């Protein structure tokens, strides 16, 4: 699998790591059930701290993209590819809305008001 990290990104590193993994899942780099490289491997390759990577991975577990299984390491959750793609788009929408001056609550109202 190919992971991309944007060096000009100003978000916290753990968010960048999570975004890179989420993008890999969304683009089909790794499919549901696939095992991710170990956190230590990821940390060494991306040149970030192991704890930063672990924090990013835990965020993804909480978002339902990854599963932590004893003895099997970290795997991509079932259905994560679809969900991950949608999440990515939602994230982009929230960012765009914020840029145009809409709050999240306003965005929610906007979506609720849709037919």
């Amino acid at each position, binding site marked *: 699998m190919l*992971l991309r990290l944007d060096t000009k990104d100003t978000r916290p590193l753990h968010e960048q790591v999570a975004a890179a993994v989420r993008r890999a899942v969304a683009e089909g780099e790794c499919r549901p059930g696939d095992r991710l490289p170990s956190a230590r*491997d990821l940390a060494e*390759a991306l040149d970030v701290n192991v704890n930063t990577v672990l924090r990013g991975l835990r965020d993804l577990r909480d978002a339902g993209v990854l599963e932590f299984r004893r003895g099997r390491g970290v795997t991509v959750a079932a259905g994560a590819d679809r969900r991950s793609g949608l999440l990515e788009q939602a994230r982009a929408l929230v960012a765009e809305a914020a840029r145009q001056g809409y709050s999240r609550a306003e965005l929610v109202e906007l979506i609720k008001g849709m037919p």
Partner: protein
Amino acid sequence: MTGQERTKRGGLRWPTLWVAGTTALTAVLPLTVADRLPDPLATHWRGSTANGSMPLWAACLVPALIWAVLGAAGLLALRRVDGLLRVWNLAGLLAGGVLFLGLQTAAVRANLDRTDWHGAELPVGWFLGTLAAALLTGAAVRLLGGRGLSAAAPPAPAGPVLELAEDERLVWFSRAANRPLQVVAAVSGPAAAVVLLGAATGLFGAGWGWPLFAVLAVVGLSTACCFSVRVRVSEAGLEVALGPFGLPTRRWALSELDSARVERRLPSQVGGWGYRLNGLGTTVMLRSGPCLVVRVSATGHDFAVSVDDAERGAALLNALRARQSA
């Protein structure tokens, strides 16, 4: 038939003649002086005292048959190998012919003009001389053949290159595994432990308990190291970790590699599964198919690993190398 195949077939003629000729000579040699030999002949020695014998016909045929079978196996293998492995193979065939013919000569010499095989003393000088001659022949072939080989090593073909954005940090991970090897490792490891316990407690005979443990332990360890592989390409270079524990792990910085490419390789080309050294360089072979191949600058040799998605790994390596040198 391609030109390469033709030279391979042609290259088989002389080794075949050599094996056939030495086999025939080994078989015929005792017959030429049959009237000066006792029947049965001494064919086995302990120190220089004879302790085993065979009738004349067996003394002719047995060594010749053993050499014929070994030689035929060598010739069959010769059809399938290239490069350094071919040189080793030829060296083995030449040395084998010298060895069998020399030993047969030494045996005939020991029996010559004896009335009974018990009196036949092994001419130790002949015996040692034969061993030395066989070793020297093999070494000479290996040296001469090897020299021509390294001079003719072709330049590595260009591999794919990935397009990189300026501010991106890219890493590539991949792995491959071999199920049957995994099963062998899973079975032989615990089996070795059981045999060790049995041998240590005297439950099994010490005569075969320890050798069996040694065999199982070697098989278990070697398969455990080779049943899976993890490969990582990043700005730090290439890292290939063998086995579930990554032991051993081989690493190269980007500057230590000349180029990366993808090649289809088969286990039959590289001499089987696992960690293989031959004329193609080093290959970590877990399954047939695309392999990531890198040319190492320091040695000029290739290192290959059979791994999924090798194309993009090679492309990323080439792109990162280009970016670093720019």
